[in-house]
């Protein structure tokens, strides 16, 4: 009964989504406030119905209702409780339902936090959000119904893919979707602005918090996913340039560009057309990612069962929304008032350069992801484009971008002084060079790692020194009072930039990692970087729905044991699948990582041992970036619904 309620709630949500699309849109054209105001309650109710439906599916998973195909294929009565909950989105149907849940949640958020805007903009935006919801609800109901029943119900389910039975999976997809789908809000506002024809600094103020919100979630989601891949796949890699990972990286890069161009639009009324375009692009790339992942066109661990009907349906949604938005853009962009131009050496000039470089990065990822698909479709040749391609193209773009980041922060709006900015960064330059030398002395080659690490340190120091300089004011002495008086968004920028520096340092340090593949004899120790690792015992153990062989390994330094790790090889009975559980210990900022393979009769165990210096910085940096974003989001001046306290100094026409 609960399951049927959930199914029915989904159908009702579809009806509400259609109402949410049509009524406010017509209302806005007729200037009928009553019709426009239908948007808010409908959006909130639609969310509640989707949530009810999602709750029903979760219930079916938790009580192991094996009359549902979805539950049979992805659950098992012995599966631990947390994976019964996370297993709901560990499959195609459930994850699409989560997608729609997040989409309708975003609609509800717009409805709740949109007091400070015209009825018209709000109702148009909610109408677009409604149309998105309707399209995806229809997709679920027609091609991917999670509530399909089967009779007779089997006694036992087939269990969740063991790779997905991990705490990381409990957090990664919801966060990722919040980011991915969060960009739908910005998309809806862009489309609404194009429909209404009013695009100004106020619009930029409306979308900035939403962009930040989606960007923060996406940053955390990507970092989480990469850490999950790192410790579950047993290869010690954290990014594989898998098309599915790229699918999340593309909107992230576009979103980062959008954050910066929206700042220019808000402050200087420039880059309007470009900002609108990026708003459309960010979510279009999310949709493209959804298509790549959900249609099964890819060879990837993320592609669950593939089904051509689904592919065609999502492709139709993709064409409808991206094509529709771009057509609207083409129709209206020409009529938009041209914003001010500005001097090349200025904050806005630097932000334009930032946008150019980020666009180039984004285009690279798009090409690298789609080129193999296009080539195969056209010629039948199958190729793989992997790390070498992305490294060759992205490193020469990303490193200059990193060099420019603090410089951009130091330039003032309208007309900047490049020399003065460079002078203010001299401390950062010196620290960066010294750090590069120190890293070179400690770890040695590769040369690229040394350079990247130097730039990373410069980025951290340069990002933060903006705060120090601003705290100093004109008096020359940093004052705490002045520091505390700085807007939160200034802290946000500096901290987010510093976080990027930390991540870059972690990435640079991958060049200094040590890998060793050995057949480990009991009680002998093997060198891995500065540590020695040896097996103390190997024994079997029984888990709730798996059996495992685990090794107790001691990590030694200078003869003393400093840590023990327990890498294991697990075997899941229901799916007859094995997977590794890496043994990891964090030492300083680096990690010792061990994964075991087969054990032999003579007691030796095949193992993969790694020492990864500074590797944790990759994810710590992402957390710091997200924290910086959160600070900016908390800035009162940017908060949604808070009117500007004082009118900005009258904008001079930018020459």
């Amino acid at each position, binding site marked *: 009964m609960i399951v049927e309620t959930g199914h029915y709630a989904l159908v009702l949500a579809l009806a509400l989504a259609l109402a949410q699309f049509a009524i406010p849109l017509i209302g806005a054209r007729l200037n009928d406030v009553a019709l426009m105001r239908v948007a808010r309650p409908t959006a909130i109710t639609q969310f509640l119905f989707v949530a009810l439906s999602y709750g029903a599916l979760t219930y079916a998973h938790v009580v192991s209702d094996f009359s549902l195909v979805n539950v049979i294929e992805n659950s098992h009565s012995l599966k631990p409780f947390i994976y019964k909950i996370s297993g709901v989105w560990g499959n195609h149907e459930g994850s699409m339902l989560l997608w729609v849940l997040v989409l309708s949640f975003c609609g509800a958020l717009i409805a709740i936090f949109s007091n400070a805007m015209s009825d018209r903009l709000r109702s148009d935006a909610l109408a677009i959000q409604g149309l998105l919801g309707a399209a995806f609800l229809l997709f679920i109901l027609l091609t991917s119904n999670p509530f399909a029943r089967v009779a007779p119900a089997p006694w036992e389910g087939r269990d969740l893919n063991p790779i997905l039975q991990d705490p990381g999976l409990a957090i990664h997809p919801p966060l990722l979707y919040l980011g991915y789908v969060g960009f739908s809000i910005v998309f809806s506002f862009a489309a609404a602005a194009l429909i209404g024809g009013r695009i100004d600094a106020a619009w930029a103020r409306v979308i900035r918090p939403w962009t930040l919100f989606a960007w923060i979630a996406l940053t955390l989601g990507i970092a989480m996913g990469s850490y999950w891949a790192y410790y579950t796949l047993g290869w010690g890699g954290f990014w594989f340039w898998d098309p599915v990972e790229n699918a999340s990286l593309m909107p992230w890069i576009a979103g980062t560009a959008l954050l910066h161009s929206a700042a220019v639009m808000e402050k200087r009324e420039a880059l309007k057309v470009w900002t609108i375009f990026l708003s459309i692009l960010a979510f279009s790339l999310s949709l493209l990612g959804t298509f790549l992942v959900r249609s099964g066109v890819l060879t990837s661990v993320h592609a669950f069962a593939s089904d051509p009907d689904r592919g065609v349906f999502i492709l139709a949604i993709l064409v409808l929304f991206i094509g529709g938005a771009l057509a609207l853009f083409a129709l209206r962009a020409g009529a938009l008032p041209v914003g001010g131009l500005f001097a*090349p050496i200025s904050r806005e000039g630097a932000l334009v350069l930032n946008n150019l470089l980020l666009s180039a990065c984004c285009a690279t990822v798009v090409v690298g992801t789609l080129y193999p698909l296009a080539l195969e479709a056209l010629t039948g040749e199958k190729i793989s484009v992997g790390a070498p391609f992305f490294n*060759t*193209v992205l490193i020469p773009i990303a490193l200059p971008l990193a060099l420019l980041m603090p410089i951009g922060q130091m330039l003032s709006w309208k007309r900047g002084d490049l020399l003065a900015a460079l002078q203010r960064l001299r401390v950062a330059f010196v620290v960066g060079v010294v750090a590069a030398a120190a890293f070179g002395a400690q770890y040695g080659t590769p040369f690229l790692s040394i350079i990247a690490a130097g730039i990373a340190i410069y980025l951290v120091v340069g990002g933060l020194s903006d705060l120090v300089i601003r705290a100093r004011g004109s008096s020359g002495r940093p004052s705490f009072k002045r520091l505390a008086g700085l807007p939160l968004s200034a802290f946000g920028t500096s901290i987010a930039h510093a976080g990027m520096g930390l991540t870059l340092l972690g990435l640079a340090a991958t060049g200094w990692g040590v890998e060793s593949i050995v057949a480990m004899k009991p009680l002998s120790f093997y060198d891995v970087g500065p540590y020695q690792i040896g097996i103390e015992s190997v024994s079997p153990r029984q888990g709730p729905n798996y059996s495992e062989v685990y090794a107790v390994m001691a990590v030694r330094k200078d003869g003393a044991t400093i840590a023990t790790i327990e890498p294991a090889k697990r075997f899941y009975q229901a799916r007859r699948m094995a997977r*590794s559980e890496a043994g990891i210990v964090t030492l300083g900022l680096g990690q010792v990582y061990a994964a075991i393979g087969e054990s032999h009769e003579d007691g030796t165990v095949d193992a993969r041992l790694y020492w990864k210096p500074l590797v944790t910085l990759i994810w710590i940096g992402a957390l710091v970036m997200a924290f910086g974003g959160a600070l900016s989001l908390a800035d009162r001046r940017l908060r949604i619904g808070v009117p500007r306290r004082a009118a900005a100094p009258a904008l001079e026409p930018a*020459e």
Partner: protein
Amino acid sequence: MTRKGKRLTLIAGAMAVLGLAAGLMLFALRDNIVFFYTPSELAKKQVASGARLRIGGLVKEGSVVKNGRDVNFTVTDKTSDLTVSYTGLLPDLFREGQGVVVDGVLQPSGAFRADSVLAKHDERYMPRDVADALKKQGVWQGETK
């Protein structure tokens, strides 16, 4: 600078950055892509030895010979076979009769020296390249969904 001058600077700068990126991409695409073949495609193609390739197929039943960490096995698509040698740990999902993708270099002898072995299998998943190749050969047995 005049308004026109500024606009020109902006456009020229944009072109320079995008041109650079496009150049880098073309350069990288020429050198860094790897072609994927099945054993029978490889047999037909006359690929020069020394080329970096990615081969997909099934691990032939009874072909896996282990000697310490050196492993030899045969990748088959049921039409042609290819002998593969590899040193290192095999992935968890590597098993005879299951799908496998190997990256490496074709040797003058016609054998294949792999530097990485990827295996992915379960009832619902098989590398798509392998599935396509097997379907073409008419030996596909799995569910098509």
